[in-house]
């Protein structure tokens, strides 16, 4: 509700009460008392004594203050949602796309590895049937060892499950946070919606996780560029072990 309209309404009411009082005074001044006049006078006094009417301008101004504060909260919440939630939603979309890509790559690697393993098994069967000695592969490995290495590699490929699981948990937590913020904003317009959700604060605060225990996922978990990231870790450890004291001065 606009300030001007509230002020106008309060002024109109005040003017009305004053006119009534003036009218009663004029009637009284014109001539004698009458039953109606006394009734009118009592009515005017009663209206004037009623706290709801007399205090109406103050109540309206207070309501204006509350609404203005709520609008300010909505504006800040909207900005906070824009800055935090929308951008993070976009980042989460990218993360979910990475999950899809990682699972597809892992599945392809596993299928290729299984194909190679089956081919080796076929060769082993043929060699066994013919009684021939196993030829060494270009790396000098026996066929059995090559097959064992292939299967072990397949174990390693399955690490994608742990990494994508963490990515999905991060996305779920973010969506839950956005849902909570939106519910709090909606509550400003309709208290019956999410009545147990507190109004958003002016300074949008993150949920208190002090008692939530250690975090069980890494929001930045990724299957990409593992070699590059390992090389960076190796470099940092090498520098740390050479100069253990001034760790704060270590540069990547």
């Amino acid at each position, binding site marked *: 509700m606009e300030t001007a309209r509230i002020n106008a309404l309060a002024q109109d009411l005040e003017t009305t009460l004053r006119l009534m009082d003036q009218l009663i005074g004029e009637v009284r001044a014109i001539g004698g008392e009458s039953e109606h006049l006394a009734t009118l006078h009592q009515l005017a006094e009663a209206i004037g004594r009623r706290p709801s009417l007399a205090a109406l301008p103050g109540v309206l101004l207070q309501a204006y203050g509350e609404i203005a504060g709520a609008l300010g909260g909505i504006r800040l919440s909207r900005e906070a949602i824009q800055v935090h939630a929308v951008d993070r939603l976009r980042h989460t979309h990218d993360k979910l796309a990475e999950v899809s890509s990682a699972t597809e790559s892992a599945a392809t690697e596993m299928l290729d590895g299984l194909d190679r393993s089956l081919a080796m098994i076929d060769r082993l069967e043929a060699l066994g049937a013919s009684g021939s000695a196993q030829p060494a592969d270009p790396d000098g490995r026996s066929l059995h060892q090559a097959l*064992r290495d292939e299967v*072990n*590699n397949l*174990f*390693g*490929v*399955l*690490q*994608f*499950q*742990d*990494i994508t*699981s*963490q990515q999905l948990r991060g996305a779920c937590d973010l969506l839950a946070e956005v849902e909570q913020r939106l519910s709090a904003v909606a509550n400003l317009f309709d208290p019956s919606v999410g009545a147990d959700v507190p109004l958003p604060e002016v300074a949008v605060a993150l949920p208190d996780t002090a008692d939530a*225990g*250690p*975090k*069980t*996922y*890494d929001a*930045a*978990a*990724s*299957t990409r560029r*593992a070699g590059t*990231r*390992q090389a*960076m*870790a*190796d470099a*940092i*450890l090498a520098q*740390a072990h050479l100069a253990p004291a001034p*760790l704060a001065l*270590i540069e*990547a």
Partner: protein
Amino acid sequence: MKCLVVDDSATMRRIVVNALKSIGYAETVEAADGNEALALCDGGVGLVITDWNMPVMGGLDLVKRLRANPETAATPILMVTTRSIKDDILTAVQAGVSNYIVKPFTPQVLKEKIDQMLAGAAHAA
């Protein structure tokens, strides 16, 4: 040498155990969080391989507790985690990890890091 594998993901524990077996470390015990791991450390564990993000007690706290205990202060500890930003790695080093592997890893990388740790431990001895 008995290796303690600590990870809240059962899948990852199986992968690490299999990788250890493939490079010659067949004796392993497993824990799902740092608390369980501490209870198992009394049993002659020669190497600890731990994840970072775990419930109840995470890997970083586990490392600090192991280093604070005179009986386990010199135990080689390998952090195997998805965390790979510089600050995280430095934090792990300051907590006392002996080496650091970024997931996903290969058995060859695991062997290389374990060899480095054991060589360092032998040198220190």
